[in-house]
């Protein structure tokens, strides 16, 4: 019997009785369930999960997180709000879109699964090695989060942007989960979002994810970027310390497209975020940066994968983390340069700041290069705050404790500083500053803060 399957079964039973969904979604769900029953929850015997122990998820039975009727919704202020300018919001609670919390901007069309008769949902782009599967993820490797998400999927939200649209202020996609406080249960939700960005667009997108209670949030997002389109994207994880997030994002890019994507993993007892970028055609460029902050006994795990599937493609990544107490971080950065993908530029850097002797980092670059005319680099650092830096600030009259705080904050804010889109940059800076100052969540000004 595969690991954790007994605990998962009640959730599979629960989702059967969920509201009517189209046949194609039922088929996806049962294919997902079959895969999960076969594979189980990922264990450390899998290379991709070597440093992340999910055994806590088998301590308690899973239930599928409730789909709330509009008059039973929890207060919106229980969940984080984007603190900067935006052009609209698409909010999902427990994997289902909440129209009451959403406002769609002009030139953007938002549809849910019931608006599709047969499976018109084009999830991710095909690759040279086969089609991206809504049930198992990439053709090259099985992605546990994608099948878990498929098995517990209540709905799919498809966001289509009109060609030639400029959105300087981000469309905020909020995927919240709200669940049990019971220590013998896990509330699972599986938001599935597809964003299609056609040619001529220049758009900003922010995903805010957060969980309240003993939640397992498994958000899976596909962003398909067409020829010449430009996307600024950030994914901000503000899950409570009682919750687990197992996220997956796939971004696929056509010719001459540009995407900057930033992951801010600032919450969760365990947060695993996979980011897969496919540079499918020549001229595509991706910047993927990330910041993780962990304290207590929290565990953060980032796994990036960049597929340079065409010549003249560029990627650069910088992931930074600050670890306190007994927290633990994992960074696995895979860069694959396909055969015939010449003139590729790929850079990867992972810098960690350890503020405690008991914190731990495992960082692993994974370069697979099958072309010969390429530039690829990687590097990783794990260290403390440089005493020379502290001295510089103290020599400018700044007291030691404040100097250390400024340097740690600067180390973290460096990631937000890099964001080209101004509205996203400002929002990210605010959220990171609040986190660093010890605020646990960001809520509406009218809202309360949660411990």
């Amino acid at each position, binding site marked *: 019997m595969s690991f954790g399957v007994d605990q998962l079964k009640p959730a599979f039973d629960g989702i059967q009785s969920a509201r009517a969904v189209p046949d194609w979604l039922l088929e996806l769900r049962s294919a997902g369930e079959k895969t999960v029953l076969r594979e189980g929850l990922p264990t450390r015997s899998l290379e991709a999960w070597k440093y992340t122990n999910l055994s806590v998820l088998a301590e308690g039975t899973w239930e599928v997180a409730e789909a709330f009727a509009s008059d039973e919704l929890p207060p919106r202020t229980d969940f984080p709000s984007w603190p900067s300018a935006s052009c609209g919001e698409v909010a999902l609670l427990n994997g289902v879109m909440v129209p009451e919390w959403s406002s769609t901007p002009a030139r953007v069309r938002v549809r849910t699964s019931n608006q599709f008769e047969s499976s018109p949902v084009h999830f991710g782009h095909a690759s040279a090695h086969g089609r991206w599967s809504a049930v198992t993820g990439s053709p090259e490797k099985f992605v546990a989060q994608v099948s878990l998400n498929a098995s517990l999927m209540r709905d799919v939200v498809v966001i289509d942007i009109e060609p030639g649209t400029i959105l300087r202020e981000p469309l905020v996609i909020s995927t919240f989960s709200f669940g049990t406080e019971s220590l013998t249960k896990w509330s699972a939700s599986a938001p599935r979002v597809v964003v299609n960005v056609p040619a001529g667009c220049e758009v900003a997108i922010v995903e805010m994810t957060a969980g309240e209670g003993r939640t397992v949030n498994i958000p899976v997002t596909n962003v398909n970027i067409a020829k010449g389109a430009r996307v600024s994207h950030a994914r901000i994880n503000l899950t409570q310390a009682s919750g687990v997030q197992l996220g997956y994002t796939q971004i696929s890019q056509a010719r001459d497209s540009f995407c900057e994507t930033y992951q801010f993993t600032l919450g969760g007892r365990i947060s695993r975020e996979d980011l897969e970028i496919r540079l499918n055609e020549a001229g595509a460029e991706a910047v993927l940066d990330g910041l993780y902050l962990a304290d207590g006994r929290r565990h953060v795990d980032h796994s990036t994968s960049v597929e340079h599937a065409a010549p003249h493609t560029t990627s650069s990544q910088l992931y930074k983390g600050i670890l306190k107490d007994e927290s633990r971080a994992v960074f696995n950065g895979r860069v694959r340069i396909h055969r015939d993908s010449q003139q590729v530029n790929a850079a990867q850097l992972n810098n960690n700041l350890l503020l405690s002797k008991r914190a731990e980092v495992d960082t692993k670059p994974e370069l697979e290069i099958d072309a010969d005319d390429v530039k690829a680099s990687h590097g990783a650092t794990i260290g403390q705050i440089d005493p020379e830096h502290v001295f*510089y*600030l103290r020599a*400018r009259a700044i007291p*030691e404790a404040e100097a250390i705080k400024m340097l740690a*904050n*600067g*180390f973290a804010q460096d990631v937000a500083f890099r964001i080209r889109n101004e509205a996203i940059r400002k929002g990210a800076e605010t959220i990171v500053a609040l986190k660093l100052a010890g605020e646990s969540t960001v809520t509406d000004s009218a809202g309360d803060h949660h411990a």
Partner: protein
Amino acid sequence: MMNLLEIKNLHASVDGKPVLKGLNLSVAPGTVHAIMGPNGAGKSTLSKVIAGHPAYEVTEGSMEFEVNFKMKDLLSLEPDERARDGVFMAFQYPVEVPGVSNETFLRTAFNSISKAQGAEEMNEEQFRKFLQKKMDLVSMDSRFLDRAVNTGFSGGEKKRNEILQMAVLSPRLAILDETDSGLDIDALRIVADGVNKLKSPENAVVLITHYQRLLDYIVPDYVHVLANGRIIETGDKSLALKLEEKGYDWLLQ
């Protein structure tokens, strides 16, 4: 008149290795001192010991600084306390601080000093106005304020940024540790102009340099030669010209 800085028989080591071996130096308000000397003589060590770098251990001697007409033991003060009392060192290799904007850094430093002196702290708007005047002194434009401290700055920009910090903090004692090294003539003029405009009868400047060229622009009252951890010769500006011409060997015999 009371000296601003009084160093007597100073011995200092780094990693257990003695570098300063009985150094004496008196600096009066309103004076400019140049300290020259061969590589490894202890020039940078002297500036770091004055600023309070924790890696340098003072094993003997005293260092006093005038605060409110009283000589205060500088060695017992933390680096940030020294800075708040008016000691400033322009770094030979200014540190890059990613993620902290130059403006935030300058305002935090300025307000730390204001607070210590019991003066009102400036808000962002007031500080920006004040800063603009100081920026003009070193020909820096406001783009520098939004950038992270020294991050991605050229060598010359870093040195100008040090002088900007000096202008903002208006120290009573400024030690410039090879601020002229690696500067082209235009940048050197900007730096020297900045220093000259900040000179006053109340404050003093100590220039640590390898090159006489700087002293054409900032004219020293005293030139000292530091060798083997001690000051072995003191003269006026003509000494610098002589050193330029003859080197140090004639003094080391």
